[in-house]
């Protein structure tokens, strides 16, 4: 449901599409909550796609932050689908700047943390604000590596964007590509298939 891949290096490279395309198969984890039973444990074939580009920017003073809700809630950026037979594969690239991002799902529950009880991102801490922080160079606009999968009625992803120390103000700009995918139910198993885990499987 969320990917942030390190830069991979291979000796031999076979081309692989960066996004889901028509004819691709996707299988959703059976760990999805019952409220998302229209995808929970199911396998689909992508019948059609469309890529929609979008940009968002914010300017904040140093050491300040803002929570960006990606969902279709009133306060959200409304980047989620509105139909049960669709999945949005959203790539987010960050323009260069002195800022970082912490990801929460749902609100106040960080995705990236460590096992010890204090090792959770904390924006007011000089050290813990960098725990699990994604910097612009981790997912640059010319090669975004941060990808999220969203569905109808999914809880909001919260991106906490914060200006880092060292500048008075910073403009934080995202270049977004929403790959809209129409789903058609097929009988599992299907090969090859892209497995999409529920976010709780990433928060171990």
């Amino acid at each position: 449901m969320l990917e942030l891949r390190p830069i991979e290096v291979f000796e031999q490279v076979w081309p692989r599409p960066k996004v889901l395309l028509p004819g691709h198969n996707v299988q959703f984890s059976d760990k999805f909550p019952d409220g998302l039973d229209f995808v929970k444990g199911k396998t689909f074939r992508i019948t059609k796609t469309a890529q929609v580009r979008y940009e968002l920017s914010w300017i904040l003073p140093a050491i300040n932050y803002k929570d960006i809700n990606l969902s279709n809630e009133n306060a959200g950026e409304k980047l989620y689908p509105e139909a049960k037979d669709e999945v949005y594969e959203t790539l987010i690239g960050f323009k260069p700047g002195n800022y970082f991002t912490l990801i929460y799902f749902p609100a106040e529950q960080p995705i990236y943390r460590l096992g010890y009880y204090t090792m959770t991102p904390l924006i007011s801490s000089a050290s813990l604000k960098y725990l699990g922080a994604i910097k612009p160079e981790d997912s640059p606009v010319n090669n975004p590596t941060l990808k999220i999968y969203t569905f109808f009625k999914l809880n909001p992803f919260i991106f906490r964007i914060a200006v880092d120390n060292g500048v008075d103000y910073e403009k934080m700009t995202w270049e977004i590509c929403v790959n809209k995918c129409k789903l058609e139910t097929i009988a599992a198993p299907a090969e090859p298939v892209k497995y999409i885990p529920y976010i709780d499987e990433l928060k171990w």
Partner: protein
Amino acid sequence: MATKIVNAITTGMDLWAEHEHKKGHLLGLKVDNKHSAPETIRLMDNFTTDAGYTSGGSAYSAESLISGSAIQKFQVTVPAGDSISLGEEDCKGLEFLGRAAALGSATASGCIITAQYKLT
């Protein structure tokens, strides 16, 4: 790359407008001062911040940093009858988050400011 030529005016002349999703980068600046007195040119960054929170969690309201509250990014004084030219290397790192404006210490039609810039 784009170019803008303006006169020195105390109330300021825009070099470029704010772009919602781009920063402005000054690539070159020439000030040709044919005025009878030295001219001090200041480059100002005009923008409005978004509302957010401080690191301590207190709410922070949007702040308008425009005109008198704009952020000064550069200053140079050019003697009467003289000119200065700054190249890309001199301007490296001079970044504007919003609208860029040039303010003169005196209004002088004989003081010409030429700015080269790009928005990225």
